């Protein structure tokens, strides 16, 4: 069936771009850039969800697409922008453990993720079978990003990127979770994000910096 084939093509394209964005995030130093990239990621996610909704004709998926747009493309990036301006950390960059190796590790992870995804995509009925591997890869890369970051804000962005990956997995592999769950997840995400926002200020007033290297007091000495 032709249109579905088309859809698959586009969807794969979007998935690939998602992966690309993840790599880009992995290598970015500036918080500012990261936020932009995060917004882009959200946008791609929105697009793909919309596409899946269109092709499968499930109403719920339109809702979740809308949710994505609201939350991940508009709300969160905006709030993040406000935050880093308020905190005045938009320009600060951080020294990562050297990028080439990180990239290589990321590459390995991607291969691993694809390998893992084989059995799943073999049984997936949706038109978007192969994308689960990419979703997994996005999650892994976000994880890697969190590990390599030393700043609170960037770590949170990594966390959100991971959520994106999860969302993508949900939509692409399973036509989305039941609505209630989606809402619950979204709600949790939002609340959690607000809490984080509060934390930033408290942390800064306590440690007068958002550098995680200050937060290493609790340990076995």
């Amino acid at each position, binding site marked *: 069936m032709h249109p579905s084939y088309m859809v698959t093509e586009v969807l794969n394209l979007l998935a690939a771009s998602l992966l690309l964005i993840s790599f880009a995030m992995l290598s970015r130093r500036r918080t500012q850039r990261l936020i932009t990239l995060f917004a882009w990621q959200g946008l791609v996610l929105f697009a793909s969800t919309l596409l899946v909704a269109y092709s499968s004709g499930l109403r719920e998926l339109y809702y979740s697409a809308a949710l994505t747009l609201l939350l991940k493309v508009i709300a969160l990036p905006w709030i993040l922008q406000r935050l880093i301006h308020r905190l005045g950390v938009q320009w600060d960059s951080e020294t990562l453990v050297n990028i080439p190796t990180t990239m290589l590790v990321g590459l390995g992870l991607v291969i691993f993720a694809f390998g*893992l995804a084989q*059995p*799943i995509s073999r*049984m*997936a*009925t949706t038109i978007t079978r192969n994308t*689960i591997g990419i979703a*997994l890869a996005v*999650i892994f890369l976000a*994880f890697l990003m*969190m590990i390599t970051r030393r700043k*609170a804000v960037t*770590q949170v962005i990594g*966390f959100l990127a*991971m*959520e994106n990956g*999860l969302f993508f*997995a*949900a939509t692409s*592999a*399973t*036509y989305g*979770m*039941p609505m*209630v*769950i989606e809402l*619950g*997840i979204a*709600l*949790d995400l939002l*609340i*959690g994000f607000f*809490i*984080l926002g509060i*934390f930033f200020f*408290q*942390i800064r007033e*306590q*440690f007068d910096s958002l550098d995680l290297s200050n*937060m290493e*007091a*609790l340990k*076995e000495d």
Partner: protein
Amino acid sequence: MVILIVLGLPLLGALLLALFGPHRYAAELNIGISFASLIAVVFLVLRVLRHGPMLVLHDQFFVDSFNVFLVALTAFVGFTTALFSRPYMRIEEQRGHLNAARLRLYHSMYQVFMAAMFLALLTNNMGLLWVAMEAATLSTVLLVSLYRTRASLEAAWKYFILCGVGIAQALFGTILLYLAAEHVLGHEGMTALLWTHLNAVKGQLEPRVLGLAFVFLLVGYGTKVGLVPLHNWLPDAHAEGPTPVSAVLSGLLLNVALYAVIRCKILVEGSIGSYLPGRMLMGFGLLSAVLGAFFLWRQRDIKRLFGYSSIEHMGIITFAFGLGGPIANFAALLHMTVHSLTKSSIFFTAGHASQTADTQQMDGIRGLVSISPTVGWGLMLGSLAILGMPPFGVFASEFLILTTAMREHPWTTPFLLIALGVAFAAIFRKVQPMVFGESDAPPLPHSPALVPVFIHLAIVLMLGVYIPFVLAEWYRAAALLIGG
């Protein structure tokens, strides 16, 4: 209906407390609500006793032999903790560690947390389970950071990030589960995530996928259980949060997280029909037990010490579930019960102990029996109980676990032996000088509410020499359900 009441009461309470937070009687209100939900749970339990397991609201919620006693336990410990927290928080407020606003936050978040616990236990929907766990994380993060000191913020931040990431893995696991499930159950409605339905068809679920799903779920929920090496948030959170929170973290949250893991294990083991999940649990359990014991050795902070001891015990329970079989499961369920009772009572006494000495450093706490004998003896007996000294119930479960391990996998027993021995030495050598000896500290301004401590210990003692028929039946049924 009762279930809705059980779920609704705490939320209502949270709302009320959030509104009239700074009210003089906030603490009493908190107690009242906890008590009300305890009553509700009692009714629920009675119904289950009369009519057996039940599925309600389009199968969205259910009570079976596995979660019924956990619900009861949760309500009970929640109530006693509320009792304890009243004088405790009063003293904290007097000492200027807290202000009214924070206290309001504390009370309402406490109820939110309770609601999340009940939801996680009662829901039949793996997705809702995930949502509830996340909600529990969020509420406890706020509770841990209550003091807004550097340490508490750091602890809360680590807790948040680690558990957040963990829970994300769990979500992915849930998605995979859904993927495999809808393949069998179809996509219509929300049945594909209902545990009972999944359990019914677990034989047909695609093994490879469930294997992967289990890994993600295990890592996800396991982080909240505090399994080594995913445990790093646990001691910080226990040490830096207010003591009632440490009590409920150890007493309830860990149990519920483990409950989630076990629910998943049942499905996965049924599907892939191998001992793989069991082996994983055994591995994690053994690692946690041994390393937890060695962590204990060098602690200086009393609450940190008992946090690590929770890791050790969760390890033992996980190991027991990993062993599988009716007896090991029975032992594990029993151990869950007695551990949460004992550990929370220990945290009660430890909290008052550190208030009397005005420090959490154990070197600063001395001669409790000579200041307030109840605190001293409570701490002493509690520690002995948690260390597996008969006739306390912890020993009963450890007896069953050790002997089963001896039969099933003899090679594990030396490790368990080392773990228990080291844990005993580590904890007792710290507790003894705190309890015994001289002290010149002044007594507390508010008389500590130690009734809960001794109620808990009495129950634990009873469970050591006599297990009521009903409870035994639940354990048995749950053990069969878990199988393995």
